[in-house]
């Protein structure tokens, strides 16, 4: 049994940690912006060398410049992932707050968030927007954003360069079903059994992030189920994976 004094101390410690988390989160945002500014300058200069704007390069120089450009792209990608992890860390801890959510708008926003990554890998995202505007769902907007981003992030990771990702929204029996299909390598047999387990990381995922989004499908599944929905996937070895999740329509 905890004493009143112990409870008070725990509450104060909790308060302190929440504040610390908020300060850290701000620091990450500011640092990320500054790093991106430095990376932009590098990116543009290296590209000028590659394009021959600063004089003809020898074969060796050109080769090294390409390596430098790839390395710079990688750094830019990591910063984007860091920013996402920064956002999701705050979101998954909070209590659920259900309201009307426009899934199509959320998806558009997420596609934009990943434009840097998809751009550098030459991946095309095709969002097959339904002809009539789908009804709003009942959900916690920020948590749903985390769900969708996680699935999209996986689709990008499993995709080959210049692959395509297809996204659909369908109304079905009082739910909105979202599907995200990639044309990548598919989930391994081992992965298919374990992919919703906590901390599982499929070894087949290409270009594994140095920093992942910080949460796996285990947490995503919990969020979807807390919403009253379901999440599942179809995956054919070598032929891509489609993730599906359903969220109830707002009544």
């Amino acid at each position, binding site marked *: 049994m905890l004493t009143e004094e112990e409870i008070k101390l725990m509450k104060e410690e909790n308060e302190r940690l929440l504040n610390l988390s908020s300060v850290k989160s701000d620091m990450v945002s500011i640092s990320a*912006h500054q790093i991106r500014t430095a990376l932009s300058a590098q990116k*543009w200069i290296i590209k000028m060398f590659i394009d021959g704007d600063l004089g003809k390069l020898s074969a060796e120089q050109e080769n090294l410049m390409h390596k430098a450009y790839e390395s710079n792209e990688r750094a*830019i990608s990591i910063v984007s992932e860091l920013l996402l992890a920064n956002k999701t860390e705050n979101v998954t801890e909070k209590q659920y707050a259900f309201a009307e959510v426009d899934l199509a708008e959320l998806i558009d*926003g997420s596609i*934009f968030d990943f*434009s840097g990554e998809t751009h*550098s890998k030459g991946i095309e995202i095709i969002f097959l927007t339904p002809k009539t505007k789908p009804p709003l769902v009942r959900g916690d907007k920020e948590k749903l954003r985390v769900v969708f981003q996680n699935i999209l992030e996986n689709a990008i990771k499993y995709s080959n360069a210049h692959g395509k990702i297809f996204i659909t929204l369908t109304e079905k029996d009082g739910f909105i079903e979202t599907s995200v299909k990639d044309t990548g390598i598919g989930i391994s047999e081992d992965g298919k059994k374990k992919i919703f387990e906590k901390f599982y990381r499929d070894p087949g995922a290409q270009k594994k992030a140095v920093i992942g989004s910080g949460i796996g499908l285990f947490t995503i599944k919990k969020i979807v189920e807390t919403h009253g929905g379901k999440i599942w996937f179809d995956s054919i070895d070598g032929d891509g994976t489609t993730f599906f999740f359903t969220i109830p329509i707002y009544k």
Partner: protein
Amino acid sequence: MSKTILIIEDDNFLQGLEATKLKKEGYEILTASNSVEAFKIIDGKVKFDLILLDLLLPEVDGFMILEKIRQNKEFLTIPVIVFSNLSEEKDIKRATKLGISEFMIKSNFTLDELAKKVKELIGS
């Protein structure tokens, strides 16, 4: 007649690279590193056809500059490309509400791609 672009960017180095690239593409360039310089140009007599706007600027940020620009009848529909390394949803939403043609994250694009977007919006 060449088209003119106003670049509002406080990082001198980035501003220089952007200006050099767009000049090469045949555009006339005006530059400003802060709101004071920007408004001098905006309130002045020189006409321009597009604004390339950074968001994080000293003292008065890009949003406030954009708000002021849109309050001026002359600039209600001038194309604005936000060229920033900010990418939070709230920033994009805020800029979009003020009527922008494009929100481009600097580190995601090469200068060639920037020039391509400018050409799409105002021609060469």
